[in-house]
C-alpha cells in the first residue's frame, strides 16, 4: 500500500515537471502582455534539439541547447507580435506548425526515422532526475523575480498598462521581447526534460498537448508561479492517478482522465471569472 502511494506521488511529480517548466514560461510571456499558445511547438523543438545535441555534446550542453532552441522559436514569436504587431494567436498557431513540422521533417530526412534515442543518462537523486529539482527551484525563483524585483515590476507593468510604463521610460518592446524569450527557454527546458530525462528518447509529436495543458495550468493558477505550480501538480497527479486506479481494479478509461484538466480549466474559468483575471493588456499589441 505504501509502495503504491510512493509510486503514485513519484510519478505525479515526474508528470508535472514538464508542465511546470512550460507554464512558468507562459506566466512570463503573458505577464509581459503577450499570449503564447506556441508553448507546444517550443516544447517539441526543445525536446528534439536537446536529444540530438545531447548525443553529440553530452547531457548538460544538450539540455541548454534545447532551452536555446525554444528561445529562438520564441524570438520569432516576439518579432512577429511585438515588432510587427501581428495577431498573437495567429503567430502562436504558426509557431506550433513550425515546431511540429521541423521536429518531424528533420529527423525523418536526416536519420530516416522519427524516433531518436538519447544516449545521455541523467543521474537520479532518490528517483528524480536533476531537472525535477530545477523546476521546483524555478517556481520560487520566478515568484521572487516577478514580485520582488524591479525587473519583475517592469515586466508586469508592460503587461498591465503599457502606456503608463512607456511614459515612465520603460521600453515596452524590450520587456516583451524578454518575457517571450524567457517563456521559450522554459518551454524548451520542459521539452528537454521529457525527451532526455523522462523517456530517454525523442518521438514524433511526443509533447502531445502538454503545451496546452501548461497554458491551462497557468490560467488555472491565476497567472502566478505558485498558482501554476499547484495547477501543474493537480494535472500531473490526475494523470498518474490512472495507473493507481487500475491497481485497485477501478477502471476509469485513460482518455477520460486525460480530458479532465481541460474540463476543470473551463469550469474554473467560467465560475471564477471575477477572481482569476489575465493581465490587463494581455494579448494586445502596444501602439504608441
Amino acid at each position: 500500500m505504501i509502495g503504491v502511494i510512493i509510486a503514485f506521488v513519484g510519478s505525479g511529480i515526474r508528470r508535472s515537471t514538464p508542465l511546470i517548466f512550460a507554464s512558468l514560461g507562459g506566466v512570463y510571456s503573458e505577464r509581459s502582455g503577450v499570449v503564447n499558445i506556441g508553448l507546444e511547438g517550443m516544447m517539441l523543438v526543445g525536446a528534439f534539439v536537446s536529444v540530438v545535441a545531447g548525443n553529440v555534446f553530452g547531457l548538460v550542453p544538450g539540455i541548454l541547447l534545447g532551452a536555446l532552441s525554444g528561445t529562438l522559436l520564441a524570438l520569432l514569436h516576439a518579432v512577429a507580435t511585438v515588432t510587427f504587431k501581428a495577431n498573437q494567436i495567429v503567430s502562436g498557431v504558426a509557431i506550433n506548425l513550425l515546431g511540429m513540422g521541423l521536429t518531424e521533417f528533420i529527423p525523418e530526412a536526416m536519420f530516416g526515422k522519427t524516433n531518436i534515442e538519447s544516449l545521455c543518462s541523467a543521474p537520479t537523486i532518490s528517483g528524480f532526475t536533476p531537472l525535477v529539482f530545477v523546476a521546483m527551484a524555478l517556481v520560487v525563483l520566478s515568484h521572487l523575480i516577478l514580485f520582488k524585483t524591479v525587473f519583475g515590476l517592469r515586466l508586469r507593468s508592460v503587461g498591465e498598462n503599457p502606456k503608463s510604463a512607456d511614459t515612465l521610460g520603460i521600453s515596452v518592446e524590450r520587456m516583451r521581447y524578454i518575457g517571450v524569450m524567457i517563456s521559450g527557454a522554459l518551454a524548451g527546458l520542459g521539452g528537454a526534460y521529457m525527451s532526455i530525462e523522462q523517456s530517454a528518447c525523442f518521438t514524433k509529436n511526443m509533447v502531445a498537448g502538454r503545451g496546452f495543458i501548461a497554458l491551462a495550468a497557468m490560467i488555472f493558477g491565476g497567472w502566478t508561479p505558485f498558482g501554476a505550480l499547484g495547477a501543474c501538480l493537480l494535472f500531473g497527479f490526475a494523470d498518474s492517478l490512472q495507473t493507481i486506479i487500475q491497481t485497485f481494479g477501478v477502471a476509469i478509461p485513460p482518455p477520460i482522465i486525460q480530458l479532465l484538466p481541460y474540463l476543470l480549466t473551463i469550469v474554473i474559468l467560467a465560475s471564477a471569472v471575477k477572481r482569476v483575471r489575465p493581465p490587463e493588456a494581455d494579448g494586445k499589441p502596444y501602439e504608441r
Partner: protein
Amino acid sequence: MDKRAIISPLISIAIAFAIGAIFIKFIGKSPLEAYASIFKGAFAGEGWGFTLFSMTSLIITGLAVALGFHCGLFNIGANGQLMVGGMFAAYIALLFSGVPAFLLLPVVIFSAIAAGGFWGFIPGFLKSKRGTNEVVVTIMMNYIAIGMIGYLLTYPLKASPGWIAQSEIIPESLWLPRYKGMIGADPTIILAIALAVMVYFLLWRTKTGYEIRAVGFNPKASNYGGINVPRTIALAMALSGAIAGLAYFNYIFAYQHRVVSDVLLGANVGFDGITVALLGKNHPLGIILASFLLAVLCSGCLAAQFEIGIPKSFYLFLEGIIIFSFVIFEKVMGGRKE
C-alpha cells in the same frame, strides 16, 4: 478586390519556398526537384483528387474561422468541432442504419452540423455570459473532444474484431458517390462551395450577418445601436462550429466509410482553417482561392514523400513560414501606405 489581396498570399508562398529550399538543400536533396515533384504530385493523375479532397475540408474550416473573425471571435476550436461533428454524424448513421438513405442522409448531415454547432456554442455562451476568453475555451474543447472520441472509439463504439480503434463501417447506402471512383471528386466539394455562397449571403445580405459584423467591428457601439451583443456572440460561435462540423464529412462518408480514431483525432485542418481565413482575408471567395493554394501544397507534399522522399511534414513547416511571411509582409506594406 484590391490587387494586394492576391499578391500577398503569393509572395508569402514564394518566401516560404525560398526558406524551404534551404532546408531541402540541407538534407541533401535538390530543391528544384522537390518543388517540381510537389507541383506535379498535386495535379498529375490521382493527385488532382487529393488536392480537391483537401481543398474541401480547407474551405469549410476556413469559412468557420472567418465567420468567427467577422464577429471579433477567434475560433481556434474548429478541430474539436469537426471531430465532434464527424463522430456524431457517423454514430447516427450507424444507429439508424436500416432507414432509407434519402431520409437518413439529411439527418446525418444535420447531425454533423448540430454537434459541431453545439461544440462551438459552449465557448460562445461562456464568452457572452461570463466573459470567458473564447481562445482558451476552444483550445480546451479540442482536447475534451479528443478524450471523448478517443474513449468512444476504444470502448463502446469500437468495431468488434481487430486492434485498431475505429468504428464499424457505415451502411453502404450512405456512401457518397465519387465521379469515376476518384477520391475528392465527391459531392462534398459542391457542398463546400455552396457553404461559401451561403456564408457570403449570411454576412453581407442579412440582418443577422450585419449584426455579426457590427459586433465584430465595435461591440460597444453595437450595444448602443440596439444589437443584442451577447446573443450575437453566442450565435456566431455556434454558426462557426456548425460549419466546422462538416469539415471531415468527406473523410468519413466518401473515403473511409467509418471513423478511424487516428485519422479523426489526428486532424489538423481546423488549424489550417486559420491560415486559410488569414490568407483569404476572411472573404468567402478569398477563402476558396487560399484553400486551393494550401490544398496544392498539402497534396503535393504527400506525393513528394512517395516520389523523392521529402517527408510530408514539410507541409506544416511551409505553412508556418507562410503565416509569418504573410503577417509581416502585410504589416510592412500597410505601414508604407499610411
